[in-house]
């Protein structure tokens, strides 16, 4: 087995064991949110049609992955920075990116069941059909990586770990209410629409809808923009985790 793969797998085990009590709680919360999300939509839209339900339900994977990547990952990293965890982990003969990849794998693994449940339950409850593309697996991985790398960049770039909590709270608010995930971008004011043409959020939602349903989206553009953000996030993460004091 190549050394990097062995190091990565052992770090996955380390991260899994480290977070195992938190992971089971996270899994339960993610599943609860998935169920609550689907049934909660009915309260917002009492006369919801299957088409609207399809639009909203297929926004859920994007929302969940963004909240994990942009909020939970930075908060966990900030806590680890405060405790000095990285001084120890980064003294081990494992690549720093391998450690972060292991971290992201475990985090993503505990999130995936909630995403699948939300989409499947939405389809069943609101009686709409899914049209699942073979691209769905790489798409979900791309979206997870994009959100996570941006999250890592934020967590390591902010000088004080405590600032991470404030910034992530603001971001979660912006993603939930002011991002075209659960509604079309046209409903936003022009200046906010313009900002969202360069941010990856609406494109991630497009990828989700384009690979899960027959909704008409520009999948090519969505992959390019999300991919570009993913690469940018990766490069920034690579640079910041290899910085030495």
């Amino acid at each position, binding site marked *: 087995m190549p050394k990097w793969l062995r*190091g990565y797998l*052992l*770090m996955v*085990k*380390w991260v899994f*064991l*480290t*977070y*195992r*009590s*938190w992971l089971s709680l996270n899994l339960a919360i993610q599943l609860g949110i998935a169920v609550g999300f689907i049934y909660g939509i009915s309260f917002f839209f009492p006369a919801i049609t299957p088409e609207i339900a399809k639009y909203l339900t297929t926004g859920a994977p994007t929302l969940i992955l963004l909240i994990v990547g942009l909020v939970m990952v930075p908060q966990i990293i900030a806590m*680890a920075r405060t*405790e*000095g*965890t990285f*001084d*120890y*982990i*980064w*003294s*081990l*003969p*494992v*690549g720093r990116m391998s450690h972060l990849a292991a971290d992201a794998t475990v985090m993503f693994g505990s999130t995936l069941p909630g995403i699948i449940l939300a989409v499947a339950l939405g389809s069943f409850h609101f009686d709409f059909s899914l049209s699942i593309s073979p691209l769905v697996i790489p798409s979900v991985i791309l979206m997870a990586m994009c959100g996570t790398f941006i999250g890592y960049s934020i967590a390591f770039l902010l000088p004080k770990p405590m600032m991470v909590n404030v910034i992530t709270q603001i971001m979660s608010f912006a993603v939930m209410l002011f991002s075209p995930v659960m509604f079309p971008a046209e409903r936003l004011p022009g200046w906010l629409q313009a900002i969202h043409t360069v941010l990856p959020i609406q494109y991630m939602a497009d990828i989700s809808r384009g690979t899960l349903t027959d909704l008409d989206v520009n999948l090519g553009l969505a992959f390019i923009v999300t991919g570009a953000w993913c690469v940018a996030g990766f490069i920034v993460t690579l640079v910041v985790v290899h910085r*030495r*004091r």
Partner: protein
Amino acid sequence: MLLEINNVCKTYRGGVKANDNVSLSIAKGEVFGLLGPNGAGKTTLINQIIGLAMPNSGSITINGVDVVANPGYARQACSFLSQTQAPITGLTTFQAIDLVGRIRGGKKADVHRRAMELIEKLEMGEWQKTMGLTISGGVRRLVAFCMAAVTPGEIVILDEPTNDIDPLRRRALWQEVQELARQGSAVLLVTHNVLEAERVVDRLAIIDEGKVRGMGTLASLKEDEGDAMRLELTLEPGKAAPALPDYLQQPVIINRRIVGRVSPADIPTAIDWARGLKGDGTIEEFSLGPATLEDIYIRLVKNPDEAEPSGEVM
């Protein structure tokens, strides 16, 4: 030499000078002590060896490999007990030791055997299956030591290894430290516990305000003390320190202890003076003996201007 540090300088952003032209070298199979007060620059030096920090100037090599340019080599060559607690919150004692042993490249069966051996030697069996979150600080420290020793590097770096550990397990830990050196690892021991260091190190450096104040074997450092003997007085509780005679050289008062050096010619006078103080109830007890590492340490750290490089050329 296995580890060579030459003229390393490190100043943090904000202007704090942590290391000032530090040079030292460590050989295979040697226990080398790096002693100094809090904030002396010891941990910064360690962080530069293992690639967590970058020197402003100077060189650090392991087996001749420049580890400033190649920190990955240093991480493979060095196993490390960090000053902060190891992140083992969700792992059991055995899992933590076993995982690090395997991450460091050990084979599963070898690591398992060695982990059990360390757990037994350090009498940690009762915590073998206990989660890191629920064990005491001292046991966590022992676990962290085992994590550094289970698949030891060519260099084993131990930053304050005995903090919070009870005296009996401390003794077992020091035996393991010496065993690591016997097996061929170089042990770099960072501590401010002078009394313990005196018993285990082969050579040592005393560092303060980022500078090496003295370096060599214990014997070579003691030679620098000359023929002078160490007079230590312990004040009665609540008593003020008496006026100190001129023949008590380089006196230091720490809490109730007064320690100074007395040249051979002044010893009878000094004993009479100490007896007098005991007689009038000023001091509880006194002792006269050869210089200890603590004396050398206090002299070099308290009086840096008098410190001369000793023992070895730096």
